[in-house]
């Protein structure tokens, strides 16, 4: 049985390892920021639902 084509983690170019943004420099920080904004939206929408119910 021939080996399956190996899917290894990509060898990122140096420029790709950083976001290039001044505040959120790493991708990990970017993903946490996106999750934080998502949680904030859910909180705000929940408040809107209850406040005007």
């Amino acid at each position, binding site marked *: *049985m*021939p080996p*399956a*084509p*190996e*899917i290894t*983690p*990509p*060898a*990122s*170019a140096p*420029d*790709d390892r*950083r*976001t*290039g*943004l001044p505040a959120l420099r790493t*991708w990990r920080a*970017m*993903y946490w920021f*996106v*999750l934080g*904004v*998502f949680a904030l*939206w*859910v909180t705000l*929408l*929940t408040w*809107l*639902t209850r*406040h*005007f*119910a």
Partner: protein
Amino acid sequence: MNAVDYLVMFGVLVAIAAYGMWRTRGQHDLKTYVKGGETHWLTIGLSVMATQASAVTFLSTPGQGYESGLGFVQNYFGAPLALIVISIVFLPIFRRLNVYTAYEYLGQRFDAKTRLLGAALFLIQRGIGAGITIYAPAIVLSTVMGWRLDLTILCSGVLVVAYTVTGGTPAVNLTQKYQIGVIFAGMVAAFFMLLAKLPAGLTLHEALTVAGGFHKLDAVDYSFDPAKRYTIWTGVFGGMFLALSYFGTDQSQVQRYLAGSSLRESRLGLMFNALFKIPMQFFILLLGALVFVFYQFEQPPVFFNQTAWHQQAAGAQGAKLRALETDFNAAHVEKQQHLHEWVAAERAGDDRAANTAQAAALAAHQRTEAARAATKAALREADPKTPTTDADYVFITFIVDHLPHGLIGLLVAVFFAATFSSKSGELNALGSTTVVDFYRHVHQLRGTSRPDAHYVAAGKWATAFWGVAAIIFAMSVTLAENLIQFANIVASIFYGVVLGLFLVAFFLKWVRGTAVFWGALAAQLLVFVLYATLSISYLWYNVIGCVACMLFAVALQLFLPKAQRI
């Protein structure tokens, strides 16, 4: 619409299309034609957003806000999570293997037959979807404006096909950037005009209080009731599943973010959507909820598809329809009186009076809704083919009846711009997949590859073929009411299996081509059989197709004779 509106509408649409054609003329390189040039992350982000947001988004979603409130926003709760997964897992692999299409990756990971299967499933479901993308807004706009449906479809279809064929991906990305700009400008202008049209002295807080009193601001539902269509749980889990399928495996989206000049640009384009998708949908739904408030203080029609109502009112059901309209108007006038009492009591801080007035307004509202339901029943009785859902007509009716000329033209341009942006993305992907995964692939297998210019020409012919097919489909269908649902059903029947193929490719590295190919075919067959025999929500076929594909592939890999485990 008057001459100013037509001037604004044609000016905006033709200028964007012509500029796109001119800037991207003379494409002879397949990589540029299919993958685009060195695209900036903001262009990618706007392009991804524009491909997803069709005219239906801007016509139907405010209507949904008007009828059902903000709850539909929960459908998008899974999108940020899915986009993060795609950014971490899918995108780096697509870029590292330098693929032109998502299905090319299946060929590299498995084999040629699995690649062709993935591409074929995409072509079937997206080919049908392309016809519906152009038909759905055309039926609403032609009905309200009194235009000929076939000419509306033909004119809008020919323009979008022209620039998509000549310029390929660079033209699609470039025009989408300006189209989404027009869309944002139009929707923001409509929002401020709507606020200005609310009764004098009514503050935004009071408008939201009225909307909330009629449950139009119920955005998040934490209940576990499986009968409810939109809850936070269906949104996060079901929405994530759908978004993974759509953004991760649908070539119309994959092609947008593979256009990035680097992995960084593509990722930032996806994160732009992860951040702004929910607020955008919330804003459009809120617009609908505010249109609802506006029509509490103005007299709305008993049925927003006025053309259909007038047609039947002139027939045998005329007396009944006019009597229902009288009942509706009387209940509405009574509701308005109670609304003014309610707002006055709120301003005076008199909670007891406010509650009493609100209860009276809600009771009157129930009578207006009963009159609307009876009207729909009467319309159905008069002619079973008459469309009896009018939510798609709410926003366009408000625009035509209450906004100034010039802005009407701009907002009709918004609906066409949204049609063009999603349609061009679809046609571009259909043409690319046809050439890259079938035509060029067969040449490569036979060892008869041709120069790039040949495949660019083939790509243009393939895109034109799909464009003409979509126009013919749109001009020949007669389904007036269930087209959007039909499109979602078709997508759900195929999406699950395609996602299953990709998840096996990414996460089950020991499963090979033969097992996943037959597993996917068996899963697709199972979905067809279940669809024909069960009466469950079509959204479940996404889950069933994906899980079945993965399970069948694993089982076949374990039990296939050793010689066939490749």
